């Protein structure tokens, strides 16, 4: 099967090329939704595997980045939902939880605590909108939902965080 080899090699090369550019962004998305490095690694591995399986059938090369980010976002949201549903998100031990991340100071300590209480969709919306600067419509596209849902996620997330930070 001589023709298959260069095509497979091309697919591998193009996949790896995109991954090398987007690796940090994808991991950042996974971590920001899951807030657990081990979970984020597993989620990214699974999301990339899903993407690689369909890589050959993807026609629009220019849409590959968006497509890859979309897979990652939705896989992480679903994974986090599964964790919550099965109630197996073991919190850090209390002594660990009490020690604030030394990189945070002032308001960021409260912000960190309030962010961790957001739903996975809210985390995704907040991270994509505020960190990556995606518009509401772009967030909706990446999260595979309507723009109205993204606005709702953002509004509720901000309300929740403001409330918590005001009371802190």
């Amino acid at each position, binding site marked *: 099967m001589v023709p298959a080899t260069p095509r497979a090699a091309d697919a591998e090369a193009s996949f790896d090329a995109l991954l090398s550019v987007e690796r940090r962004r994808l991991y950042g998305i996974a971590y920001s939704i899951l807030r657990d490095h081990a979970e984020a690694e597993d989620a990214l591995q699974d999301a*990339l595997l899903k993407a690689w399986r369909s890589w050959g059938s993807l026609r629009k090369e220019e849409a590959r980045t968006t497509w890859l980010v979309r897979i990652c976002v939705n896989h992480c949201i679903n994974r986090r939902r599964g964790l919550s549903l099965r*109630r197996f998100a*073991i919190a850090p*031990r209390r002594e660990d*939880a009490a020690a604030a991340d030394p990189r945070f100071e002032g*308001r960021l300590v409260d912000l960190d605590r309030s962010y961790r209480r957001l739903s996975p969709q809210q985390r995704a919306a907040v991270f994509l909108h505020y960190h990556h600067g995606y518009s509401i419509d772009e967030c909706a596209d990446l999260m595979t939902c309507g723009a109205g849902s993204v606005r709702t996620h953002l509004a509720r997330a901000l309300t929740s965080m*403001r409330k918590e930070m005001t009371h802190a």
Partner: protein
Amino acid sequence: MPDDAMASPLDLGDDLRRYFAITTATELPRRVREMSAATLRPRRRSYGPLLGGGGAGLAVAAVVALVVVGLHHGATGGAGSMAASSGAALANPRVSVAYPGVDTSRLARAGVVLQPPSGHGTARLTPAEAQAAAVAASADAGGPGPAVLAWAQLGAGTPASTCLCWVVEVHLGDGTVNSPAGPAPTPPIHNVLVLVDATTGRIADTVAVPGP
């Protein structure tokens, strides 16, 4: 609603940007740095035929059977069953005891590894006594969950402390847990796993399980 409709006197935009700049500025884990089409493919090849051939159900059934057998043998403490279970545990030290609704891998990351109890002695406490001890150790506790006997490795220290424990989930009303060091305020934790030493009845450890 336009994007700027979310602005308020307590505008979090700048804080969020600073916050994410910090949280995403970490070095990528080695496994992530090494991810590529080549490292993804072997996993696809190995799992594909198994899942496609309906082997997933068999694999799940085998794992469930292993856990059930381990629990049953541990609770009864029979000599034959002890040998069988501890043999399986020795052959595969990653064999873990399940607690309903709790993922043992996440539990392990919190520093607690539950393994089959066979070969580690006999529980002096009954399950009911362990449940009572777990409830007594938790302020404003609701009803306890089932008591599951396990050989627990506690903490990430070297060597990790171990004990034969009854594992009991307890629902909390006010998010406060009594530890040997005294009551401590916590974030809103609604459930905890209490590990009760099956020999002495002391509380060996308490692990928080956040509510849904």
